[in-house]
């Protein structure tokens, strides 16, 4: 069912104005690549949409002493092109796989967060880098770790009247190898069946620290911490990784849906681990 009616939408000029509108029940709209579709289908209702995509306060990427801060309304394409994101290879690898050039020129990282999709490609690097989410409302600001912010499919810790303002990502320790792979049903415009992102620090082929984040295989992106710990002091070889394949398959909680069965997702999740040795 497709509605052709017009959506109520307002365009505040300042953050304060936007926060008042959101406090009154308006739904923030940034890139619109998901929300616009849901509102038109009627699966999402709000008295009005508040267009926040061009608010100065939600824009830009800036480098701080500890890392970078990305405005919530910064598009994937802008983040990819910004020199400050060069040190975050896994962020760039993941964002590059989102949709198509037009989708990347529209969709935003803040939108990816607020959407809280288990298959949100942009979320995986945020889990790996242990990013924090800055929220703002007419009552003030607060900050949450990304793992505290996302609670389930489409569910976040956002309170009534709150907006995602920015995302802060700390610089990683030097020497991390970045890895990102998503498996889908086709080659283009993929919504993942399973995806794995990783940061691996290794000396002479031996893993010193590993962070893994899996998408589309649980209600939220997951960090399989027991597997991460078990990787330490193992050689980065297919043989050594194979020993942990089943552990990784057991660490995920996938569902069956139109894209794949839960069993297939579990198997793919385990197999993706072996890929780290060739990445």
């Amino acid at each position, binding site marked *: 069912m497709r509605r052709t009616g017009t*959506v109520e*939408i*307002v365009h505040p000029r300042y953050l304060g104005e936007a926060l008042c509108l959101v406090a009154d029940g308006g739904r923030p*709209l940034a*890139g619109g690549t998901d929300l*616009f579709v849901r509102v038109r289908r009627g699966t999402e209702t709000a008295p009005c949409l508040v267009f926040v995509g061009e608010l100065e306060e939600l824009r830009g990427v800036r480098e701080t002493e500890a890392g970078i801060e990305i405005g919530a309304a910064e598009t994937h394409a802008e983040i990819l092109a910004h020199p400050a994101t060069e040190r975050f290879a896994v962020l760039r690898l993941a964002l590059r796989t989102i949709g198509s*050039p*037009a989708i990347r*020129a*529209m969709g935003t990282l803040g939108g990816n967060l607020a959407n809280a999709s288990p298959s949100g490609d942009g979320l995986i690097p945020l889990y790996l880098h242990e990013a924090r989410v800055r929220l703002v409302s007419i009552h003030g600001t607060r900050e949450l770790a990304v793992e505290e912010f996302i609670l389930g499919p489409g569910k976040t810790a956002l309170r009534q009247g709150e907006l995602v303002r920015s995302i802060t990502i700390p610089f990683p320790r030097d020497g991390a190898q970045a890895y990102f792979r998503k498996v889908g049903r086709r080659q283009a415009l993929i919504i993942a069946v399973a995806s794995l992102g990783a940061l691996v620090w290794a000396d002479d082929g031996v893993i010193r620290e590993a962070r893994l984040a899996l998408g589309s295989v649980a209600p939220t992106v997951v960090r399989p911490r027991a597997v991460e710990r078990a990787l330490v002091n193992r050689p980065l070889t297919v043989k050594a990784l194979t020993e942990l394949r089943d552990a990784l398959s057991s660490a995920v909680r996938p569902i069956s849906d139109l894209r794949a069965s839960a069993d297939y997702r579990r198997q793919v999740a385990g197999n993706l681990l072996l890929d780290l040795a060739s990445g």
Partner: protein
Amino acid sequence: MTLRFRLNGRAVTVEAPPGRRLLDLLREDLGLTGTKEGCGEGECGACTVLVDGKPRLACLTAAIQAAGKDVLTIEGLASSGRLHPLQEAFIATAGVQCGFCTPGLIMAAYALLQENPRPTRDEIREYLAGNLCRCTGYAQVAEAVERAAERLR
């Protein structure tokens, strides 16, 4: 509300509700039917237009998001009365069959060549990944973009 923006190089002023889709504004209010509606939910790329030089899907863009911007549609490519080299190349390689996806493909290809005047075959295929075609197949399309890139250099 009154919306003002540039459309294919000309200033336009139009009355529209702010939540009207840019797609409907172009096709119904301004009579530019070159931009097509395929899926209406951002999966097919048929409604690709350029906004301030960047590719965008007109079906997922609210009219208010075009305010003050520079919008380029397929009609703007041949505004001088002569076909753009991309349009000529699509014809020459038979990159058009039913033609429904063609305006979106050409606008995406136009955006690619603005960013990267010398794309490889793989870069072309990757850049056009969001534009679905159900009859031509993509080989002739990629060839058309290569040809046009050569002519534009």
